């Protein structure tokens, strides 16, 4: 129900008095007319989060990248505290877990 997906703004319609701000947004290859009234700062090529035909947030690229690097940053911190190698999990085990997840996602 609260499903919302990110899409890239292809174009924004010129402002018309008394009308809501609209634009064309590419969502996974499909271009849809989306209401941009709630993201007044959005520009062309920005990624916006779209929910039931309305853009509700601009996706922040820097934050998006930093959340993917969370583990890396955390591990760097850990290494500062603990220079000893951690052997609780081997690379093979990690690969095996990865494979298991791939199988689930594909199925």
């Amino acid at each position, binding site marked *: *129900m609260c499903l919302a997906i990110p899409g890239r703004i292809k174009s924004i319609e010129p402002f018309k008095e008394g009308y809501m701000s609209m634009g064309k947004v590419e969502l996974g290859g499909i271009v849809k007319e989306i209401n941009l009234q709630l993201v007044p700062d959005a520009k062309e090529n920005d990624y916006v989060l779209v929910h039931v035909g309305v853009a509700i947030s601009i996706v922040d690229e820097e934050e998006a990248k930093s959340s993917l690097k969370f583990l890396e940053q955390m591990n760097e911190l850990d290494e500062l505290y603990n220079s000893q190698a951690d052997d609780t999990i081997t690379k093979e085990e990690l690969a095996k877990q*990865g494979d298991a997840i791939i199988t689930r996602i594909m199925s």
Partner: protein
Amino acid sequence: MKYLTEYRDPVLAAQYLDEIKKTVTRPWTIMEICGGQTHSLVKYGLLQMLPEEITMVHGPGCPVCVTPTHLIDRAIFLALEKKVIMCSFGDMLRVPGSGKSLLQAKAEGADVRILYSPLEAVKLAQQNPDKEVVFFAVGFETTAPANALSVIQAHQLGLKNYSIIASHVLVPPAMEALLSDPETVVQAFLAAGHVCTIMGNSEYYPIVEKYKVPIVVTGFEPIDLLHGILMVVRQLEKGEFKMENQYARVVREKGNVPAQEAIMEIFEISNRMWRGLDVIPQSGLEVKEKYAAFDATKKFNVPLKETKENETCIAGAIMKGLKKPLDCVNFGTLCKPSNPLGAPMVSSEGSCATYYHFYSAVNEVEKVEV
């Protein structure tokens, strides 16, 4: 960046799982609020991959599921008796009221339509000036701005044939209701990322302080969920309770202010009945008196009748995290998505329906049945 596939990376997921395993030392019970999160956790098999110390319990975060039966009855009444064009999101149609569902009403000749957006319903009202168009406006804070915009737009266009049935529920009061229950087992929350996209994080600080529970605002992709769980577990293990934001690429501290303004223009906060739970004070949104012309229940003379829930259904205990769908004797036998006895089985985001579709143990139930 596509902001989607990157968060489904299996190798990164395995690294997060490994990190969670290294961090956890004791059993913890964590509730994810949103049904979309439950759906992802089960669909991607994350529940089975988490270390056994971590129990995820599934919150009441499916607005379709918690819509009380009497509102569905009203929608059916309007569609069948008042001959309106009744529109709603797809998952609302199969949900049974006290008698039938909107889909069954459609089969009996009612004009019931599935729409992607409430703004399409406004367009439909423009195109059909001789018909009444009603949108069954279901949702959490995430959907409230879109429903509010539809009323604002209809008002701007001077439409007299558009109205909504407001079935809006609010998340933070429900979290408080769960935490203040003496039976509660929840030790931490993954807050619903898209609700916070609209409302921001401010409502959660008092809950963190009052109930001393960690709350992490979390997204919906597998990496988001594992990241959120790791953040929660790190707090729990250290004995901390803080409000943190895993989903910062989308959720700003203050939320979306124009969206909040749209909500407050059209709606006011009221007490609200949650199907499967009870009346939760100040947990819903009603159309303001100023916009009463757009409130379908006021516009048409709709009979107000209270209805009863199925007595064997354990929906309340499931939505409080006290029981799991598989604990229910009716699960997969008497109660299925095609014939739901209670709230969590009705929509694809209800926890029972999610388990029914994806959980491996469910397949065994199915096999026995065949």
